[in-house]
């Protein structure tokens, strides 16, 4: 008889440590935040909620947020459902390319999109406005980006990929014989769409819509850059304003707003996962036979034009605008060949202040990604590969962090780690890194867990049986098998961390200004060209990251 394998003990320690870490850095700050919003010096007191929402500007911010998020959600669903169907289920020409383009804005920082659309649609010198004025001989610019409609437009373009990813995945996973069964029962294609396809898609459509709603409501960059110049305030911008006040009263008001946001966002996400676990029809179907694509026939090219037009407006146009602006010699002169050059690039690349921010953000991203990947590996291993009690608790805590709006996380960290409870991280790089980990680890855990669940337990048992220790088994068998997902998980933390704006904007100190914050400042001080140059640099790094990611995971994971 061999000696009992030391699995229980070492695993128990790993669980205990990761649960404690996650409790301390995710749950504890959120609890402190809730407590602070409900108690004043130990006495239960919700007068600040009444007071905050009693002020017209805050109430207006709340209604603006709800209105914007609803409009963005409905518009995203209306755009995404037909797109997902065309790309996923028909013989649309170039559907693979469109799929990539339509999810591309997912990996572009939202504030870069905001900057681009201001360049395109601001009422005085917007490129697109000028172009439309010229074409139609208009006196006045047809569009003004600094309006509720403008904010909704940019939010829709940048958050509809959330819905697109969810809905198109469900479309492609659906067993096409369910539709064929309807056809053979006597239903026309249109009736089949109505009676079978849409009802089956409904849970995914609702889930995608809710994701967009939450993302739009939690977004800071777009409303701050596009909305603030037009005096449009939303919840996130109000919270930032209150925090900037810096006094106890400001923090308290911010806390009240944050807690209400957190409850709504986490409540909706909880509802969404409950709904998906109870109504996710797509997983019920039996073996899927063949991918059945609908022939568009004479509608092929009109559909192509529609999708291509959307892809052009949503992705190509804003990217082109930022790139072109960065290469303009003089902003006051128009677009012409002799006005193109790298003049705007030189001061940026030679500026030690700018370059420091870039390297700093890359550094923070790398540190966050390395710590996060190791933690993700533990959390994923525990929830997928073991059967000890509480194995999925760490996973749940990570999901909780990811589901909480960035602005709420930032505020909770400020309140908790400013020395009131022992640890003081305020103004250090560590508070930024902790915030990135809290927000972005969930994606990396998902990716690694999905890959680990593919590694059958017998592979591990065979190694243990061959005499390898548990640690040795992890190193020799498990890690090599899931290594692509580990690389993917690393990038899934690195990328959003290095261009993060919302949390960094509240958490940075004099020596820890990040790239996102720098870009935001440049844009607010109306230095559009330097902002464009930095945007292009960010886009390049994102692009390189995605190419690497694509190579490593053979196209299975991208951002």
């Amino acid at each position, binding site marked *: 008889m061999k000696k009992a394998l030391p699995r229980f003990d070492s695993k128990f320690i790993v669980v205990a440590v990761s649960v404690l870490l996650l409790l301390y850095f995710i749950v504890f700050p959120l609890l402190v935040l809730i407590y602070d919003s409900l108690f004043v010096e130990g006495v239960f007191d919700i007068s600040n909620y009444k007071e905050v929402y009693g002020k017209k500007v805050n109430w207006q911010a709340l209604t603006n947020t709800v209105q914007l998020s609803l409009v963005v959600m409905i518009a995203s669903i209306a755009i995404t459902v037909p797109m997902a169907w065309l790309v996923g289920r028909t013989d649309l020409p170039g559907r693979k390319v469109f799929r990539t383009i339509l999810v591309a804005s997912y990996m572009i920082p939202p504030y870069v999109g905001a900057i681009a659309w201001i360049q395109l649609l601001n009422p005085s010198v917007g490129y697109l406005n000028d172009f439309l004025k010229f074409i139609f001989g208009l006196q006045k610019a047809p569009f003004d980006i600094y309006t509720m409609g403008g904010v909704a437009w940019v939010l829709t373009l940048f958050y509809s990929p959330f819905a697109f990813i969810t809905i198109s995945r469900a479309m492609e996973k659906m*067993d096409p*014989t*369910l539709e*064929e*069964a*309807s*056809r*053979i*029962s*006597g*239903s*026309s*294609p249109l*009736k089949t769409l109505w*009676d*079978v396809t849409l*009802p*089956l898609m409904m849970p995914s459509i609702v889930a995608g819509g809710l994701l967009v709603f939450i993302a739009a409501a939690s977004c800071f960059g777009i409303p701050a850059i596009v909305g603030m110049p037009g005096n449009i305030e939303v919840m996130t911008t109000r919270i930032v304003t209150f925090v900037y006040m810096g006094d106890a009263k400001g923090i308290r008001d911010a806390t009240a707003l944050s807690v209400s946001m957190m409850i709504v966002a986490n409540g909706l996400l909880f509802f969404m996962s409950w709904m998906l676990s109870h109504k996710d*029809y797509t997983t*019920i*179907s*039996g*073996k*899927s*036979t063949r991918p*059945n694509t609908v022939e568009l026939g004479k509608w092929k090219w009109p559909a192509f034009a529609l999708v291509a037009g959307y892809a052009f407006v949503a992705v190509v146009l804003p990217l082109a605008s930022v790139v072109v602006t960065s290469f303009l010699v003089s902003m006051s002169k128009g677009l012409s060949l002799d006005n193109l050059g790298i003049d705007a690039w030189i001061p940026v690349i030679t500026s030690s202040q700018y370059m420091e921010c870039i390297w700093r953000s890359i550094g923070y991203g790398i540190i966050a990604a390395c710590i996060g990947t190791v933690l993700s590996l533990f959390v994923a291993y525990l929830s997928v590969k073991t059967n000890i009690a509480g194995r999925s608790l760490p996973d749940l805590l990570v999901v909780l962090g990811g589901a909480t709006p960035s602005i709420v996380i930032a505020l909770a960290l400020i309140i908790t780690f400013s020395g009131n409870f022992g640890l003081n991280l305020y103004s250090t790089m560590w508070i930024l890194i902790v915030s990135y980990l809290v927000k972005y680890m969930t994606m990396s855990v998902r990716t690694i867990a999905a890959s680990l669940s593919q590694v059958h337990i017998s592979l591990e048992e065979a190694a243990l049986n061959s005499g390898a220790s548990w640690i040795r088994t992890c190193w020799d068998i498990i890690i090599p098998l899931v290594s692509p997902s580990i690389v993917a998980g690393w990038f899934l933390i690195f990328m959003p961390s290095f261009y993060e704006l919302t949390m960094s904007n509240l958490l940075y100190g004099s020596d820890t200004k990040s790239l996102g914050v720098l870009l935001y400042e440049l844009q607010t001080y109306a230095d559009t060209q330097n902002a464009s140059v930095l945007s292009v640099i960010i886009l390049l790094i994102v692009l390189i990251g995605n190419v690497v990611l694509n190579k490593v995971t053979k196209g299975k994971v991208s951002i």
Partner: protein
Amino acid sequence: MADLKLCHIYKKFGNVMAVSDFNIDVADGEFISFLGPSGCGKTTILRMIAGFEKPTEGTVTIGGTEVYNGSKGVFLAPEKRSIGMVFQSYAVWPHMNVADNVGYPLKVRGIPKDERLQRVMRMLELVHMREYADRFPNQLSGGQQQRVALARALVTQTGLLLLDEPLSNLDAKLRESMRFEISAIQKELGITVIYVTHDQSEAMTMSDRIVVMSMGKMQQIGRPYDVYTNPANQMVADFIGLVNFIPATAKGDRIFMQGQESLSFPNPKQLSGEAVLAVRPENISIARTGGMIKGIVNHCFYMGDSVDYRIKVKEQIIRVIWKGAAYGIFRDGETVYLDFDNVMSFAKEG
């Protein structure tokens, strides 16, 4: 009336010829199985009958109506063909309960609710699912979902029923009982059935005629007995039942077994040159003395209802199945003599 006629059907996917020159005439009330290995084109033909694929060439006629004609540009959409179909993955709609699933084809046709319910219940009775009418598919087992799919395909009483490997996702016991149930329902309703399968025992037990397919071509069509006892070629003999192939040479009226030149069999097909003799394991008898071919017992496997012997004859292993025999009559290494019965012969292929 639901007779079915396929004339000169060709189907190309890109450069691959999935079906070539397929012809069949199915009489009303007939049960026909398409049998063949995966990728032989049997499901493609079924989908062309249903209207989910368009043939590259040819005509499809159902109940006297031309539903597809390549040269005349006739194409009737699946929903207008009045066909019942059961899919391999059941394709029971998860968002409707059993009664709604079965009643859907009637609802589409605008049948009033009372009559609909009555007919749905009658169908559920037929497939023994009456008490499950209010259940949802995720509360049903695979076999029960298959019954729902069957009831749904039968409810409009269209007269033509297509079944695409309907039993392949079920376990062995259930597969066998469903086989007899489908057969009984078909006899009771008098419908025409096209049944696609790769399982020869399903095809043998249920069908009036079997179509054996390989590489997009019909290899043979005939009653199960004819296909089994008189296969058209080596592929059919190999695919249906077990068979020993023995290299041989045909000369005049006789075919000589290779390595046993003293031994010859009749040559009814008038083959010449290289040929193949085929004999099924159950048509070989073993004895200690007196048989025509000498061999050595290589190994034997006890199967319960039979013993499966592997006999080494020259360089070849011949398989012999002895029904009802006791285990251990012949020991490994023992010299035995074999007698062949019902020997088939084919021209050598490839």
